[in-house]
């Protein structure tokens, strides 16, 4: 079987049509971006935070990345040839690619990057099924897998822990220590940790000329701005006032009340970026009362989505599915029966049937993300009303997140915001779900995941995903609440800004 993942003509035409008018674009100027988070590392292979990745995607590029619809699209690869029943992937590199240090990018750099990724990356499991690599010539790189995986390029596209191509000299460099030398449209000029960072236009950038225009993190990217200064401003109100006073041209992570405050300013554009994250409750099927399926289902029955959305005050949209509308895998009918039950009578009946005897239900949340905190507080009220004995635990976000991942911490329900997993498709959910050590009744799940990866046809993969989604929701391992937006804003002198998961500054310009 030979299949080509090349440039989709229709997608290019659509992107070209959506692209801003070329005549208006002008080179030059510098802008200031007030970003929420500080940046600890610019090593793409170990970076998972959105704040870091927003910078990283301006400096580094992978073989495959995401397009405007978050689907896989070649970036440094000109084409991908799939063979040997999806066990062999041949990447042909684009010509004339150069790193920021002037060196030419060859397949030797790709090989070294894959090897480094397998050694240091947090997401090294991505390559655990690799049988070997071949480098037939300077422009060709071949990956051989042990088992068939039709969605391997879809897995490679992940913008979280991106498999960016670094110079071969970085191969043996420790995780977090890679030098910021990529092929992207911007280079790192200066970086004062926890204060600010400056990106400068890469004058020698080799854009993908086969594409009509920019397309997500891929396509024909053009840097118009001379420089972008990232000011790290942790305090949300300070970011708002920086924009209001003209100190910043763009800001990230605005609090909900800023929408109202900035909304009536004619010189400021507020963007609600959907899709961004999904607010969910996860239950622990290995701890105490929630080990019983009926108790978990009783929790789900008590959830009232509208009350939670109202309490958080965040821009959210109702969506029963674990994928977003627009994704080819998105179906609401499969997930709808499990969504927004708000049925206390059903919850009490399920509790009675389960034999629940008032065991404590620990709800874990954190103070760093107010929407998670508020959602858990509302849920605690709803559960108390249904007859649960609840206790809310407020801990730090990192510990809560690690507890969810590993099952540690003696919790029964936790609130979380899944971001990249639902955005990128079922294959990204797989790493999250399969790595969860405490999930019970995995038989069906594991088989469905195997079918999903091995099936060459989309219909079979879609069917497998429905089975997975139904099982996760029916077992109430995950209880979906709503889709959450990121709120960003920028001045109207800044053009070309489009709502997207990551803030991008290529193909944006100032007038």
């Amino acid at each position, binding site marked *: 079987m030979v299949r080509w993942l090349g440039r989709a003509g229709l997608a290019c035409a659509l992107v070209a049509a959506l692209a801003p008018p070329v005549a208006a674009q002008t080179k030059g100027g510098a802008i200031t971006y007030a970003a929420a988070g500080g940046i600890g590392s610019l090593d793409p292979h*170990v970076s*998972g935070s959105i704040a870091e990745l927003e910078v990283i995607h301006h400096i580094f590029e992978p073989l495959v990345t995401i397009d405007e619809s978050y689907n896989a699209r070649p970036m440094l690869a000109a084409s991908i040839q799939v063979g040997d029943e999806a066990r062999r992937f041949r990447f042909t590199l684009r010509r004339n690619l150069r790193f920021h240090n002037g060196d030419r990018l060859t397949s030797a750099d790709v090989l070294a990057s894959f090897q480094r990724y397998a050694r240091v990356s*947090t997401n090294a499991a991505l390559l655990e099924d690799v049988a070997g690599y071949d480098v037939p010539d300077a422009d060709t790189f071949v990956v051989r897998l042990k088992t068939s995986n039709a969605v391997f390029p879809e897995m490679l596209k992940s913008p979280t822990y991106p498999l960016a191509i670094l110079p071969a000299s970085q191969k043996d460099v420790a995780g977090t220590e890679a030098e910021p030398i990529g092929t992207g449209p911007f280079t790192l000029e200066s970086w*004062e940790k926890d*204060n600010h960072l400056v990106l400068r236009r890469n004058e020698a950038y080799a854009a993908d000329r086969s594409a009509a225009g920019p397309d997500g993190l891929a396509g024909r990217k053009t840097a118009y701005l001379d420089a972008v200064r990232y000011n*790290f401003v942790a*305090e949300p109100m300070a970011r708002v006032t920086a924009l209001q006073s003209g*100190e910043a041209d763009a800001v990230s992570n605005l609090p909900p009340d800023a929408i109202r405050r900035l909304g009536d300013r004619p010189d400021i554009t507020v963007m609600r970026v959907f899709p961004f994250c999904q607010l969910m409750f996860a239950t622990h099927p290995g701890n105490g009362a929630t080990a019983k399926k009926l108790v978990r289902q009783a929790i789900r029955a008590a959830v009232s989505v509208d009350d939670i959305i109202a309490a958080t005050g965040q821009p959210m949209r109702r969506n029963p599915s674990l994928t977003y509308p627009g994704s080819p895998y998105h179906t609401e009918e499969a997930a709808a029966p499990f969504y927004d039950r708000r049925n206390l009578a059903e919850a009490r009946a399920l509790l009675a049937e389960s034999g629940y005897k008032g065991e404590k239900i620990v709800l874990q949340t954190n103070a760093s993300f107010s929407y998670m905190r508020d959602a858990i507080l509302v849920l605690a009220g709803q559960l108390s009303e249904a007859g649960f004995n609840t206790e809310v635990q407020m801990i730090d976000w*990192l*510990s809560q997140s690690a507890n969810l991942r590993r099952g540690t911490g003696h919790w029964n329900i936790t609130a979380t915001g899944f971001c990249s997993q639902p955005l990128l498709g079922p294959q990204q959910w797989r790493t999250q779900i399969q790595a969860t050590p405490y999930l019970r009744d995995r038989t069906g799940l594991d088989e469905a995941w195997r079918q999903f990866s091995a099936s060459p046809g989309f219909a079979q993969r879609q069917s497998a995903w429905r089975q997975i989604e139904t099982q996760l929701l029916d077992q109430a391992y995950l209880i979906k609440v709503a889709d959450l937006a990121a709120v960003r804003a920028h001045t109207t002198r800044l053009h070309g800004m489009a709502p997207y998961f990551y803030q991008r500054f290529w193909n944006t310009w100032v007038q």
Partner: protein
Amino acid sequence: MFRGIMMRLSQAVPVLLIFSVMVFMLMHLLPGDPALAIAGPDASPEAVQKIREQLGLDRPLIVQLLEWFSHLAVGNFGESLTLKQSVISAVGERLPVTLSLSFVSLVVTLPIGIGLGVVAAYWRNSWIDAWVMVLALLGVSLPGFWVGILSVLYFSVQLGWFPPSGYVPLTEGGVGPWLASLIQPAVVLALFQIGFLARITRSAMLDVLDQDFIRTARAKGVDEWTTISKHAFRNTLIPVVTVLGITLSLLVGGSVVIEQVFALPGIGRLIVQGILNRDYPLVQGTMLLFGFAFVVINILVDIIYTIVDPRVRYG
């Protein structure tokens, strides 16, 4: 005098020792794991454990504490886990910002705080006294972060007088931009100190104004200005200098909040980021340097006592 200073310094050693143990214990009591902060929540338990071992966090607390002390003994404050630089150099980079903020704030605090206190005492129980004390009460009561946000909204957003955030070093922009970036946070930071100082000055001044020597000076026909400025005010200086020492300490401490609100890259912000990232060496080292600064300030206050009041002797 020298002997007195040395005695004060030797007394500071056990204070700093107790302080450092408290800082160490408090940091380790905080929930959260620095290894997890470095590895990220998606990291495998093995990867987190590996980092924990590399950092020596898997050893008993007492071993970690003793090792920290042994490093401190040779002037090594450790290396920040997140910034990948020595604590001393991280503090050194940010010190000018916090010192500048504290200096400008002190320059604002001293004349206004002392002046208001003297005015209130001189016109005691009048409407002037009442208003000054109401203002002083507001100064000590209003939270700095709230006043800071309101101030930015009005003076930066509404009027556009000052930048809302950020710091311009003296060496880069000259005095004008440097002062423009600092004056707003410095005034907000000074509000508490002004209120505090005004109340103490008023109280000390009232005590002095009731003394016999003031009555004598007035009876001898000394004019009011000389009576207040030369005879009365000089005698209020002991409590005022004491409060100044506390004020200076509070200025440095208050910078933790103000630097967050105004996005100033100073030591306060460094500590907050260090705490959020569970960067033990950074927070411990910085707090210890803070503690040392407070001890030095108190010694300086003791020295100033001997200058303003020749009766005070040490050693």
